Every structure is written in C-alpha cells, then in structure tokens.
C-alpha cells in the first residue's frame, strides 16, 4: 500500500532528479526532523547529525541525475543517512578512541545519557530502564523505525541491510522484552 507520504516523497524525488529546486527543498525539509531524530540514536552531537544531513543532500544533488532509479525513497534516504552518520562518528572517534568498538560505546552512551537524565526525574522507572538496556542497538533502531516512523518490515530490512527474517526476529524479541513490562 502506498501512503500519501510515500507518494509525496516519490514526486519530490523525481523532481529532484530533474533538477527541480523546489522539490529538492521540500524533500530536505520533510526529512530533516525525521533524520535528526534517527541520528539521535547514534550520537548526542547535534552538529554531527546536521552535518551528515547536509552532506547527504549535497551528495543527492550532485548525483541527482543518476538517482532516478531509486524505488523506495524513504528506505534509501534512511540507509544513506545512516551510513553517512556512522562513517562520520567512526572518523571522529578515530581521534578520540583507538578502535572501532567505541562506536557502540558512543551509541550506548547517547541512549544511556538520556536515560540518566530521566532517572533523575523519575526514580520509579527501574524496570523500564532495565528493559531498555536489554535492547541491543539493532533492536533500538528497529523499534524506532517500526514504532515511530511506521516502516514496513521490508523497508527496515533494506534500510538496515539485514534480511527480512532477521527483522521479524528482532521485532519479535523486542516485543517480548517490552511485554515484560506488563508483568512488573
């Protein structure tokens, strides 16, 4: 089923490949907030996120004439953005840390930090926190895309470059975790 938003995206995207400035601008403005929030999953540095979004659209514009074969605009944009941002985080962390494992540290720390902030506000959420900390980064991404952005499983599999069955598995396990909340 094609939603209105998907249709709008497709129109803007095809406009962009034909050098239509307005379509390009609309695409950027429609996606900025979504991608910004998505980026928050990986880092707390807003500037890094904004930079990645700009560079992403810079690439789109430069290569616009070759981008007319993109079928799922939403999945394509999220994937490209995710790659761009992770590359930037990796590049930057080279200067700070010595190895790649720290990307995940970075990832965790951002979620952890926001949890800590909340902790001060609400002491009662111990159960919730333990459940969320049991979710791994992939699960968090999947939940974000599925619950918050309304991605289909197929779109999630394309965006995160994992197979369809894995998406289903991750979703299933995540839901099981969350359901534990009910038992508390």
């Amino acid at each position, binding site marked *: 089923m094609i939603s209105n938003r998907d249709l709008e995206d497709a129109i803007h995207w095809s406009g962009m490949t034909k050098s239509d*400035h307005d379509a390009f*601008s609309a695409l*950027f*403005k429609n996606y*900025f*907030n979504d991608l*910004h*929030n*998505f980026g*928050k*999953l990986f880092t707390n540095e807003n500037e890094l996120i*904004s930079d990645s*979004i*700009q*560079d992403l*659209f*810079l690439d789109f*514009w*430069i290569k616009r004439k070759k981008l007319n074969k993109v079928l799922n605009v939403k999945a394509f944009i999220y994937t490209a953005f995710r790659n761009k941002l992770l590359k930037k985080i990796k590049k930057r962390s080279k200067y700070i840390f010595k190895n790649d494992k720290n990307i995940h540290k970075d990832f965790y720390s951002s979620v952890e930090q*926001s*949890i800590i902030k*909340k902790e001060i506000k*609400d002491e*009662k*959420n111990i159960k*919730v*926190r333990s*459940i*969320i900390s049991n979710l791994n980064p992939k699960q968090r991404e999947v*939940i*974000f895309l*599925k*619950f*918050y952005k*309304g991605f289909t499983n197929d779109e999630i599999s394309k965006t995160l470059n994992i197979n369809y069955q894995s998406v289903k598995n991750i979703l299933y396990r995540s*839901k099981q975790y*969350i*359901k534990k*909340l*009910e038992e*508390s």
Partner: protein
Amino acid sequence: MKKNKKINIVEIIQNKSFRNWVRFRTDNFYWEDFATESQENAQLVEKAKSFLLTYNFDEEEVSEEFIEDQFEILIKKIYLNTNSSKRPKLDFSILIILIFIFSLGYILNDNLNFFKAELVEQEKTELNDQIILKTSLGKNYLIQNEEKLVLKNNINVSKSKGELDYTNNNLKDNKIEFHELIVPRGKRYNLVLSDGTKVYLNSGSALKYPVNFKKNGPREVYIEGEGFFDVQKSSNLFIINTEDIIVEVYGTKFNFKNYTEDENSSLVLVEGKVGLKITEDESIFEIKPGNQGIFSKNNKTFSSEHVNTDLYTSWINGEIIIRSENFDQITKKLERIFNVNIINKMINSDVLYNANINTNDETIEEVLEYFKEINNINYKIYDDVIIIN
C-alpha cells in the same frame, strides 16, 4: 480499537494517537477513558507512558527556522562544491577580443596540437585567488603587484604594473618553452608576447603561449576564458586554440567568447578578417566586421549577426556594459568580475536589463543596490555567496 478487547503494551506503544497523547499532552478522550476504566488499564497506560518517556527519541522537534537555516547552509555547500569542481579547469567563460593590424596568412594543415596539452589542473589551494605563472619546467610563480619577477632558468621577463613583457626575453631562439598565465576571478592582467602582441586577460582566464614564437610557422596560443588581443603585424598567421574551435587571425580586431558553461562560443569582429573552424575540420567560417559569429557547441554549427562591438570590448577599461540581458546572464558576469558566487532564486528570467558597471570603483554591493532599487530584488550576502530572491 474496541475498548473491551484485551490490548497488550506493545500495541499501545505502537499506537500513534497514544504516543501523541503522551508526547504532546493533548486531550484524548479515548485514552483518558481507557485509563480510568480499570485498575489493570491504568497500570498498562502508566507503563507504556514511562516506556515512551524513557525511550524518547521522537520527542524533539526541530524548529522550522532551524531547518530553513540548515537548508541555506546546504545551498551554500552545493554552490561551493559545484563551483570548485569546475574551477580546476577555470571557467573559461569568456570573450577573446583581438585587435589585429595585419592581413594574410596561410593555413597550416598540420596544426600542431602540442599547444593543446591541456592546461595543468590548478591545485585546489589557497592560491586560487592569486595570479599564477606556470612554466613548462613545472615551476609556478605568484605574480604580485610591484614585485620583480626572476625566473629560475634565466629567462628575462620584464614586469611592470599589471603587465608581463616578453619582447626582450633572452631565451635562445632554438629553444621552445611554454608559459601559462592564470588569472583568477576578480582579477585582470596583461601580457606582451614575444612578437609584441598584447593580450588583456579578463577574470577567470588562462593563456598558454611560447616564451618565443617560432621564426617560421604560425604563432599559436591556447586560451580558456576571455582575452582582448592586440595582435602584432607579422607574416606568420596568429592562431588561437580552444576546446572546440580554432580562431585564425588574418588581420583584424575581434572579440571571441568561449564560456564552458554556455552553449555557444562567439566572436565579435571589430575590423579586418577572421576565420573560425571546428577543431579537426578544414572548412572555415569567415566573420565580417561589426558582426558576431556564433558557434553552437551542441549542433557544431556557425552563424552570424550584426552587433555593437563596444559592448564586448569595454571590459578592458574596467567597464561592463549590459544591454538587454536577462538576470542569469548578468549574474554570470558579476560572479567573474567580483569573484563571488550568486544563487539566483528569482523565477522570472524573461525580464531584460540594461546597466553600465564600472568595476574599478564600484563594489558588488553597489551593483546589487542598483538592481534592488530599480528592479525590486532582494539579496543577502554571506561572505562570497550571494542569494538573490
């Protein structure tokens, strides 16, 4: 959603209206009712709420002004990016103007292509706004005002303000060496070649030429951009090579324009006789005085029309005359003259403008103010990027 149906926490969290209710604290009778219906429901809602509030990636909303700002930065990045990718070859946006006082020449069939050894790509350095002299030995010199130029291999090139003079150089006749003068946007520079031919190079242009012309055979130079040529009388034909076409000078004054970003090259003949031909082609298209010959890069064809030649030559005195040009054409000129990048967001490009700009004492702001007053445009200047609305 039916109230009686047993609903689990995952379903609640996935429900958009529930999320909005939690996030924005909007009135929602359905969920308010649901929560008060039973103890069980109240607990469920409480847990789902705390999950969402703890797990709050979606909470932040970026303001529209912020996105607008981000978009302007993006536009600037795009502009600088597309421009710098063009820059290595320099915008050969240009007119070549030739004043030539002599006639007769012969057409050499073996048009030596050594001249076309492409202009060495200009490194992307901070040297981009400096006038540079490149020698065939690979040595580069910065040409700064009022500074003596000493070339390493003892070639004697005299230099006075805004001009290099090769007429008295001491390179032996049997040696061939090429120099290339690169003039960035926002600057102009003059050259006197070994035969006494004077070349005024306009902003964003490059000329490649031999230190000494051969005694016998045509005098050949290669140009990107715009130049005004005052060609010295000689029995040797003067040839200007460009990417697409070759200009053969038989004795004449003319103005040749070969912008890479334009679909056409054009040559305006002031007086005398000039022939154009397509590279690797034999047939010659002759231009009559007072006419402009136009070469279409797409169709590879020539045509000509009558024009006012002053409009094409005034720049050597620092004056730009604009007659019946649309804003896109004008902004291209302004970009080169003032070394700025202009993003034109105006939709109406059919309006034609007239203007006289003196580049010696007018700034880009003064020029834009003029357009603002008479044509109701709005502009913003961010360093070297200007956005026109």
